[in-house]
C-alpha cells in the first residue's frame, strides 16, 4: 500500500458526534467559567447575560453529556487498558520527546489517549450527576442542603479536571500532525498510522 494512501479512521457519524460534543463542551465550559470565577463573569455576555447563562448552561451540559455517552458507548472497547499500556505510560518522557520508536506499539489508541478517555467518562458522569442535584429551579429542592453543597463543589472540581483534560486533548491534536485531519475528514495516511498506531494499522491490514 502507498505510504500516502488514505485509510479511514473516523466514519461520518463519529465525526458528527465528536464535533457535537466539542461545540457543547465549548459552550458549557464558557458559560460555566462565567459563573466559576468573578474575573470571567464577562463571558456571560456571550450567552445574553447572567440569567440566560444560568438558564442555558445545564441544558447545554445535558446535551454534551448525552452526545458524549453515545460516543463513549461506541469507543469504550477501543479504550480497554492492555499490558503494554503501563510500559507506554512509564516512558512518558519518550512520548513527549517524539521518540515513538522506543515505545510499545500503540493500537487504535495509545495509553495516554485511553487514560484521557476514562478521565472524560468519569468527569462527564460526575458533572451530569452533580449538576442535576443543584439545577434550579427544577431539581435542587428535592435534595438535602449538604448534598447540594457537596454537589456544587464536585461539579466545579470535575469541570476543572475536564477542562484540563480537553486542553491536553486539543494540544495533542495540534502537536501530532494529521490527527485533526482524521477528525475533520475521517482519514489518515498509512504513514501516519504506521508511526502513531502501528498495531491498529496491522489489524486494519489483516481485515483488508
Amino acid at each position, binding site marked *: 500500500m502507498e505510504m500516502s494512501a488514505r485509510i479511514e479512521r473516523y466514519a461520518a457519524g463519529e465525526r458528527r458526534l465528536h464535533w457535537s460534543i466539542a461545540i457543547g463542551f465549548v459552550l458549557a465550559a464558557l458559560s460555566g467559567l462565567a459563573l466559576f470565577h468573578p474575573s470571567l463573569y464577562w463571558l456571560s455576555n456571550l450567552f445574553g447575560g447572567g440569567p440566560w447563562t444560568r438558564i442555558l448552561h445545564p441544558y447545554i451540559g445535558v446535551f454534551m453529556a448525552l452526545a458524549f455517552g453515545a460516543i463513549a458507548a461506541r469507543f469504550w472497547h477501543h479504550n480497554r487498558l492492555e499490558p503494554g499500556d503501563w510500559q507506554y505510560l512509564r516512558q512518558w518522557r519518550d512520548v513527549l520527546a517524539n521518540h515513538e520508536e522506543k515505545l510499545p506499539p500503540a493500537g487504535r489508541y495509545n495509553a495516554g489517549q485511553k487514560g484521557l478517555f476514562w478521565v472524560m467518562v468519569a468527569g462527564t458522569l460526575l458533572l451530569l450527576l452533580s449538576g442535576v442535584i443543584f439545577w434550579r429551579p427544577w431539581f435542587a429542592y428535592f435534595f438535602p442542603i449538604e448534598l447540594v453543597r457537596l454537589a456544587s463543589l464536585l461539579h466545579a472540581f470535575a469541570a476543572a479536571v475536564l477542562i484540563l483534560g480537553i486542553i491536553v486533548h486539543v*494540544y495533542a491534536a495540534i502537536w501530532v500532525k494529521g490527527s485533526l485531519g482524521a477528525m475533520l475528514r475521517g482519514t489518515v495516511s498509512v504513514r501516519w498510522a504506521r508511526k502513531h498506531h502501528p498495531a491498529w494499522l496491522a489489524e486494519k491490514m489483516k481485515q483488508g
Partner: protein
Amino acid sequence: MSSLQSLDIRRRSATTSASPSVREQLSVAKLIDISKCIGCKACQSACMEWNDVRDAIGSNVGVYDNPPDLSDKSWTVMRFTEHETEAGRLEWLIRKDGCMHCADPGCLKACPAPGAIVQYANGIVDFIEENCIGCGSCVTGCPFNVPRISKADNKAYKCTLCSDRVAVGLEPACVKSCPTGAITFGTKEAMIDHAAERVADLQERGYAQAGLYDPQGVGGTHVMYVLQHADTPEIYHGLPAHPRISALVALWKGALKPLALAAMGLAVLTGFFHYVTVGPNDADAQDGGDGDDDHPPDAGRPARI
C-alpha cells in the same frame, strides 16, 4: 432593593477589588429578646406593609406558624416551639426567624453574580435583585436556611433589615411595630450592652442559662437574640448552636477558584512551550516522503549541521 449610595459597601458578591467604602459607618444591629415576645406577629405585618409584599393566603398546618415557612414574600416568620423544661414547666418559645445579617455572609461568599449581594458598611447584608441570576448559590451558602428563590421571577429574596429605612435614619419596620419592645435596634455596641442588662435580669429571675446569641462562627451577626436558654439554641425551632459557612462551600468558593484557573493557564502555557521547543510530531514530514496534502515534505525540523 437597589444598592443605596447613602450606604457605603464593605463587601460585594463576585467582586475581587475594593468597593466604594471611604465613609466610616457604625455597625448596626437588631436585638430580638425572645423572653419579651408574645407572638402577636405585628412585626410580620409591618414587614409585609413596609416592603409591600403580600404572600398568598395559605392553609392552617396545625401550628401557630403562619405562613409555615419563610418565602420570597414572607421575609420574617414567627416560629413557635412548645418546650417542656426539666421541672415539667411548659414554655412557649417564639422566635422571629429571618436573615441574621452575618458579618461573614455565606450567601455573599457563594454568589457568582457581581453585586447581586452586598454588605453595607453598617453590616446590613442586602440582595440586589436586579443583579441576581437565580442560580440559588445563596441558598447553598447560607448557614441559616434563609434565602428564598421566587417561583415567579427566579430572583432571591430575604429580609433587608429595612436598609432603605436605616439609610435615612429610621429603625426597621418590625422594630417600630413591636408592642412589647422585644425588638430593639441601634448600634451593635449599644445592642450588646442592652442585651447584657436583659441577660442579667433573666438570670436573676431564674433563667441561669440566659444569654446573647451572636454566633462567632459567622463573625457575629447583625441580628441577635436574647435567649432564655442560650446553652441550647436548637430548642428555638432549630436555631444552630455553632453556625458557620460549610467547609464544602468554603473550599468551592475559596482555594478551588484560583487553583483551577492557575492550573488551566499553566496547562496552556506548557503546551505552547512544548510546541516551540520539542516541536510537532509529524509522520509525513519526518519520513521525508511524498507528503500529505497539508504538510509538504520540507515542513519538518531542519537537520542540525
